[in-house]
């Protein structure tokens, strides 16, 4: 394939020489050539090329007064240390020297990098420089060294403890500099997570320590505040007074410009709220949260808004009243990304009440006229949820939906509306005016229904309100004929409805259907679940007592309360504790998606 080679050559130019060229640049006698070569090595590394073979040559450039070059060499070293562990030791001298440099920037850089060279033998050399930098005069160096302790622990917990670094680190929590405090805390938490030795106590809180942290809170950078606030959620107040004190200190942070500080403060306040004794005080505190919560939705970062909304949903479930007046804030904007729009609807339905229902329904109607089908479906569902939540809205909601079918009438809308209508009837069972309003609409569109949830819905309606369907027998004929073609969830509904209709009917009009459906379900059907159900019906029907039969088969469903999904209480408790974390956005407790082994060290010391 000479042609191919030719083309390749033409387009790519000679390739062989690259490594060679870099190598000769790295050992050039001219300083600027060396520096240029280092830059190019880093560039190659950035685009994903493997330049580890240049390790020895790059390393030769480590002793330099040029800070930028030093940083680049250090960066290279961190990336490829593992490929040349033995050579890393050659860098040790420079590292140690640099930790004594008069310039704190270099001292910090050296200790930061040393910690990142994850080579076992580094442990032996790090003790002295780390000790020194942890008690450096310059807080910039100390805050960097504090983090380095965690890096060392990751590499060798034993050495870290034996050298006494844990004690030194704990001492830094009381450092005069807030950033050192925050990093010491971070480092200790990291170590706590990594620690597998149950006899080792890494960090314990007492009121004294908490007091120190609270003092420090206002002095910190935004990130330090988050660290301290997160620490406060891990502490249980010993008294109502202490809890109020913590809440008082956290409350001003609700005004911080960083939404993450705001959310962490909310978390702290909710965490300690339970320990506050006076109910009046508790509700006053809760009141203060509504505006900060809303502010999460007006952040300029859509992704942060989304996290905010996900957290609001959790908080709302525990404290439903907290945002009762804030509906309009959640109206969707045309420019919102779809994922935000959908999540906003979730909040809107949860805020529905008598006073805002008219506004809410007309807004939902707008969304149902949009073009993104996911939004349309959710809007229809939401209209249903509102009708189910607020009895006064039923007629209005039904009219909106039937208008929607008339106007747009595609099968997507018919399907979704059928399910919603059925749910409305389940909420208000036996209300004749609703039945006569709703059933004819569904009856007119049965042929367009093809989604399984909607199909299940209308089949259930057959069983529940047989009299309202004019050509019931034809429908049943076709359902029974195609019984085996349906998925098992539909089969179950056909089964139930046929049994019910038969039981309710005084004549034998439907006994054939019954016989056939039971035979099909028990003999031909694969699903064990459908078979179980069919046998249960069959055996029940063969039992003597018609009373018992009626009691079971014609048992009325109690009205459903809501179609807005809620968390299982166990889950909710977890989520409230895990606000602002990944759990809060997946809406799943951390144990369900975090691998427990994550917290143990990954890289064993060889």
């Amino acid at each position, binding site marked *: 394939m000479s042609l191919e080679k030719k083309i390749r050559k033409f387009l790519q130019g000679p390739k062989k020489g690259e490594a060679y060229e870099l190598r000769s640049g790295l050992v050039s006698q001219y300083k600027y050539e060396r520096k240029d070569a280092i830059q190019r090595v880093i560039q190659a590394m950035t685009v994903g090329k493997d330049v580890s073979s240049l390790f020895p040559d790059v390393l030769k450039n480590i002793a330099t007064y040029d800070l930028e070059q030093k940083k680049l060499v250090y960066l290279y070293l961190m990336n490829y240390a593992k490929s040349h562990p033995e050579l890393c030791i050659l860098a040790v001298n420079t590292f140690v020297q640099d930790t004594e440099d008069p310039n704190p920037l270099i001292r910090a850089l050296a200790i930061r990098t040393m910690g990142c060279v994850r080579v076992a033998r580094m442990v032996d050399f790090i003790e002295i420089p780390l000790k020194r930098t942890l008690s450096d005069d310059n807080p910039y160096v100390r805050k960097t060294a504090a983090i380095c302790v965690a890096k060392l622990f990751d590499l060798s917990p034993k050495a870290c403890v034996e050298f006494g670094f844990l004690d030194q680190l704990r001492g830094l929590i009381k450092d005069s500099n807030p950033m050192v405090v925050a990093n010491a805390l971070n480092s200790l938490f990291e170590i706590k997570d990594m620690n597998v030795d149950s006899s080792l106590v890494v960090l314990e809180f007492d009121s004294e320590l908490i007091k120190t942290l609270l003092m420090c809170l206002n002095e910190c950078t935004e990130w330090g505040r988050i660290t301290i606030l997160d620490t406060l959620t891990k502490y249980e107040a010993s008294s109502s007074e202490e809890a109020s004190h913590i809440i008082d200190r956290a409350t001003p942070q609700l005004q911080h410009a960083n939404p993450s500080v705001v959310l962490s403060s909310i978390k702290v306040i909710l965490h300690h709220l339970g320990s506050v004794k006076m109910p009046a005080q508790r509700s006053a505190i809760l009141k203060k949260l509504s505006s900060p919560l809303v502010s999460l939705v007006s952040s300029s970062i859509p992704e942060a808004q989304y996290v905010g909304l996900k957290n609001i949903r959790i908080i709302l479930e525990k404290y439903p009243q907290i945002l009762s007046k804030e509906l309009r804030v959640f109206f969707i904007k045309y420019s919102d990304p779809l994922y935000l729009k959908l999540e906003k609807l979730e909040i809107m339905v949860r805020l529905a009440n008598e006073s805002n229902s008219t506004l809410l329904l007309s807004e939902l109607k707008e969304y149902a006229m949009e073009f993104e089908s996911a939004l349309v479906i959710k809007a229809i569902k939401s209209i249903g949820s509102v009708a189910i939540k607020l009895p006064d809205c039923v007629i209005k909601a039904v009219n909106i939906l039937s208008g929607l079918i008339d106007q747009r009438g595609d099968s997507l809308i018919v399907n979704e509306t059928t399910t919603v209508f*059925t*749910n409305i009837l*389940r909420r208000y069972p036996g209300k004749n005016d609703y039945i006569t309003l709703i059933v004819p609409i569904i009856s007119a569109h049965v042929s367009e229904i093809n989604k399984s949830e909607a199909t*299940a*819905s209308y089949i*259930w309606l057959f069983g529940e309100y047989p009299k309202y369907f004019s050509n019931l027998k034809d429908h049943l004929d076709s359902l029974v004929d195609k019984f085996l073609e349906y998925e*098992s*969830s539909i089969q*179950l*509904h056909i089964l*139930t409805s046929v049994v019910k209709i038969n039981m309710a009917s005084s004549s034998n009009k439907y006994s054939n259907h019954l016989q056939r459906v039971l035979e099909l379900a028990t*003999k031909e059907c*694969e*699903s*064990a*679940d459908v*078979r*179980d*159900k069919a*046998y*249960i019906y069959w*055996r*029940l029907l063969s*039992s003597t*007592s018609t009373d*018992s039969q009626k*009691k*079971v*088969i014609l*048992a*009325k*469903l*109690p009205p*459903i*309360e*809501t*179609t807005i*999904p809620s968390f*299982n209480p*166990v*889950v909710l408790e977890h989520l409230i504790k895990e606000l602002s974390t990944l759990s809060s956005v997946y809406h*799943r*407790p951390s144990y*369900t998606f975090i691998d427990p082994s994550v917290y143990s060290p990954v890289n064993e010391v060889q």
Partner: protein
Amino acid sequence: MGSLKTFIKNVRKSKTIADERAVIKKESASIRTSFRDAGLDHTTRRINISKLLYLYILGEKTHFGQVECLKLLASPRFADKRLGYLATTLLLDENQEVLTLLTNSLDNDMQHPNPFIVGIALCCLGSVASADLARDLHGNVERIFTSNNPYLKKKACFVAAKLVDRDPDLAETFMPKIDQLIGEKSPSILLGVSRLIQAIYDASPESRPALVKTVPRIVGHIKRVVSTGYLPDYDILGVTDPFLQVSLLSTLRTLAMDSTCSEKYLEEINDILTQVASNIDTGKNPAHAVLYECIKTIFTIRSDQSLRVLGVNLLGKFLSSKDNNTKYVALNTLLTVISIEPQAVQRHRSTIVSCLSDGDISIRRRALELSFAILNESNVRVLVREILQFLENCQDNELKPYITSQLIYVSDKFSPNQKWHFDTLTRMLRSAGSDVSSESVSHILALIMQCKDTELKKHVISKLVSSWLHDSTQFCLSLVTIWTLGEYGDLVLESGIYTEETEKVIDDTLILSIIESGINNTTFTESETTLLVSYVLTAIIKLSIKFKRPESIERLRVILNSKTHDTNLEIQTRAVEYKEIFTQDLQLKKGILAKMPPPVMKEAQTMSLQGSSHQ
């Protein structure tokens, strides 16, 4: 209006994607505006259409230019026509309404004295032909066959084939041409007639016997190609015209499969295949392409034993090739060979299994499908172990449902004994329990119901429970475990099971904890949860007559009642009905909830990883 070149340069100069969008949208707007100009000259129109093509390549909208393309190709100048037709074939397809406006131009141009104009018109018809166009214009194509221009004739063959695809009735029209065409020697016309034969064969069953009669001519052509010397114009790395060879071989395969293909013809075919298979092997891709087609033909038609051996050997060579493409097609072909030469394929078992851990998903997929295909009574234990291991480490989520359903199929068919069978399925549920189809779940449950050996049943249930305790996030494992506990809980109550470290006793408390975790799960999707809770409810009602301790029974009732307000229709209905059953007297309940009779077993289904089935 700038030139096309300027437009392309401006697009390429854009630093951000937003800039690029703006450049494109503005240019598109100025093209649209320019089209409105009633007095637009052809040169400007041509520039516009060129730009439109560039928009098309970029994936932009071009619908507004469709009519303009038709206007351009109606110009008398060749350059206009050439671009006009090119744009039409790219921007339009058979579904466009404006296509009707094209009929006239095509009709005229296909009768044009200039053969190149006829050529581009033909080409256009070949790309956008709808059934209507086929009916209206087939006469023009017919006429071209009578001309003596080979350039047009070859094109006409392909276009005729396309028209037959669009309107099967046209098979009759073009069938009479075959006889003359198959006598031609020009390679490109032969490519065309080969395509036309296949099209007519597919469209018209009546024509098939007549088409089969061309076999000797086709064999002759192949023989000629294979035995000619070096033809620089047609040679690719030592192989003469692989395009033609492959096309003829594939047509031969179609015809040889026809029921009217005589033994004599088959013999001829066998001979020519032998010749092809043994003559070419340069070890290069063009040779492999021809051999690959040849091997496919050998194993598709009724070939001789000796020829099949030759084919198997060639495949063996392919399989050991370092070139991944050759390896891939070998694995792909072995799958079709397995039903004909099972022993030969078995020989490659270790290679196939080693391909399961190949770094390339394409190879892995083929190897996987092949592993299942070569599975039989004698190697089932070894291979299933390999496959289960593969499944446990499998990161390709799309493959898992296939693997699980195939595992069910093969263990049904080849399991050495029942215990092994159940152990395999349990292990499968444990490692890929979220990728098992509902049919498979039903199948597994049916197997358990079928099992008459009570001790084995107990073993299965405790295995399930201990697997569940190990990992409760596998959906189908949960389903099967919960259903089984409901149905057979009494068999295992108070018996011990071994989990990883500790020995546990299956008692009310343990079962209740499984039930509750089923109800309170947070791992599964909404629809999965609905299904699981439905299973749990049935398990609850069944257990209500199996548990002895009143407080456990009461616990069951409480859980059941908690679901009577559920939003999900099925769950609510079920909970309400069961709640009523719960209050019935024990005798009646025992009747209703007696053991489920085992169902009639259905055969598990086998499936393929490739879109369409193999020949």
